[in-house]
């Protein structure tokens, strides 16, 4: 599915992020070095307050680091302006949120089309690609439904379709099963497994061990630093 050549998708060096909280400074990240190869399935784990959300925001180009460097697809992003970051979020990253974050008044199809609108894809092509993405998550028959007419699992599948539709370099999922029951969680994780096999690079941020178990590599963050980074025997069905 992913037609890009092999290589590094992500490389960070000394990635640091601190926030000024009144007179004190909070160091959320204290120098993260991380390399993710194309086709990897990585889980980032850590207790709350460990800095894993901050790391995800930086990797997702929603935030800029205080210090350190970050290359996405070989492109240095630390110095990029707002426009370029928006373009990268649009083309290179597919976000999957814990709370789905679908637009409530728009149909599933419209929601999936949204990134393509900002990519200035023509309406006809937009529709075709959105339908194709919905087919990948098995929801083509539900495309005219609004989010409130869909189950939690279906909503998350719509949001995965929205993340896939621009054919991004990286799928970035933040606690993708946090709002789902365990059965639906398994369905969603199975879908991630399928996408991984299809060649997508996936980064899942979670604090649940059994979600992380789907990944081929687990990075643990503690106090803003990488505490462990090791390959992991995937428990998912082959």
């Amino acid at each position, binding site marked *: 599915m992913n037609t890009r050549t092999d290589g590094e998708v992500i490389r960070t060096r000394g990635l640091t992020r601190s926030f000024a909280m009144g007179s004190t400074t909070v160091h959320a990240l204290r120098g993260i070095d991380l390399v993710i190869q194309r086709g990897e399935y990585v889980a980032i784990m850590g207790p709350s307050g460990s800095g894993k959300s901050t790391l995800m925001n930086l990797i997702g180009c929603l935030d800029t680091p205080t210090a350190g460097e970050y290359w996405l697809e070989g492109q240095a992003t630390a110095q990029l302006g707002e426009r370029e970051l*928006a373009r990268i979020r649009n083309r290179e990253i597919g976000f999957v*949120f814990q709370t789905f974050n679908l637009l409530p008044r728009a149909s599933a199809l419209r929601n999936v089309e949204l990134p393509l609108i900002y990519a200035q894809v023509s309406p006809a092509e937009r529709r075709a690609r959105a339908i194709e993405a919905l087919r990948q998550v098995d929801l083509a028959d539900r495309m005219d439904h609004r989010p409130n007419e869909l189950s939690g699992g279906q909503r998350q599948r719509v949001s995965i379709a*929205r993340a896939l539709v621009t054919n991004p370099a990286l799928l970035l999922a933040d606690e993708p099963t946090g709002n789902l029951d365990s059965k639906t969680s398994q369905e969603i994780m199975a879908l991630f497994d399928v996408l991984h096999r299809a060649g997508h690079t996936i980064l899942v941020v979670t604090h649940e061990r059994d979600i992380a178990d789907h990944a081929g590599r687990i990075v643990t963050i503690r106090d803003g630093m990488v505490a462990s980074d090791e390959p992991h025997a995937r428990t998912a069905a082959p």
Partner: protein
Amino acid sequence: MRARLVMLWENVKLAWDTLVTHRFRSFLTVLGIFIGVLLVVAVASVLNGFRQTVVDQVEQFGTNNVYVFRMPFVNLGPLSREMRLRKPLRLEDAWAIRDRCPSVELATAGIAAPGFLKRATYRGEEVDSPRLRGVFPDNADVANRVLASGRFFTEQENLHRAPVVVLGAAVADALFPTGGALGKDVLIAGRKYTVVGTLEPRKEGPFGRQNEEDTLFLAPYYTVRRFYPGLDDHFLVARAVSGKLAQAMDEIAEVLRRQRQVRWNEDNNFELGTADTLIAAFDDIVFAALAVMFLLSTVGFLVGGVGVMNIMLVSVKERTREIGVRKALGARRRDIMGQFLIEAVVLCTIGGGLGLLCAEALLLGVGQLLPDLASQTPWWARGFAFLGSASVGLFFGLWPAWKAASLDPVEALRYE
């Protein structure tokens, strides 16, 4: 370019969705703009209709006529010393214009009997403060007067100072409610005149008022001079050869400057008017009224605009999370800015459009009830309704849109 248009269209659809979702709130928001537009369009339509009746009236006299006055037709504020000291226009001036202006085919003069005349009577009927004019027979021609009965007086009657009179339609009705005016003797300020003709009514004046021409008593010039020898302030009318109005005006000005011994470095001490300049002078008044009204409607627009800004700020707050999502999916600042600006513009334009519709419906209804109130919605009022309200949206939407566009995506996504 195409991509921009597609984006614009997406945003308009989005704005429309939001509006429909919050119908009532949206309507309350644009109430100020709605009322502002309603007022502007209604007043502009009435003024424009008013102006149109004036235009019709003036043009009924003929568009090739040049009128000479001692004072400006419309004068706002006190007369200057120079104006007060201007010499009266004389009968000879009219003949000079007739004889020496090649582009003038007809020139005539008239005189107004003093305004203090008590009344005109016939048997039991009377007209207060009759307006008696002494004119030459060709006045009928110059002023496009149409006879309803009888005839206009002749040059013979004029030269012999015959006490005859032609009645305007309104005074003929007033003195002879049952008709049959011809040949009767009417008393005007105690003097007896024989009616030789009556005139067709002229077009009604503004707001269905009587046309002043219908209230005239027209008597031969020399007759009036005989009864009122002290009168010396003439009004002159000249008719230009068709298509030579501009030349005629130049020639008349030249002749009058010589007649009135105006030195080469002094301004004219008389005023020339044509149908066009009379209308233009009237337009000054209309314009002043419109300017005042625009000022008032601006207040409505400002109040409405602040309301729009307020509701847009609320809308931005409510949709903080949506903005975060859009940014995460690749919306640039300008995309978000455009989305909220267009929402404000669509909101205001719909408010303005509704105001326009209501105004037109209202005027239509009033027109049915009061046919005399001639209203006519000018095209620029329609344009103003749309452009004005759209620019209110653009202006007052700017800050909320900027706030939305400046939201930090991380913060926005975390917002509950």
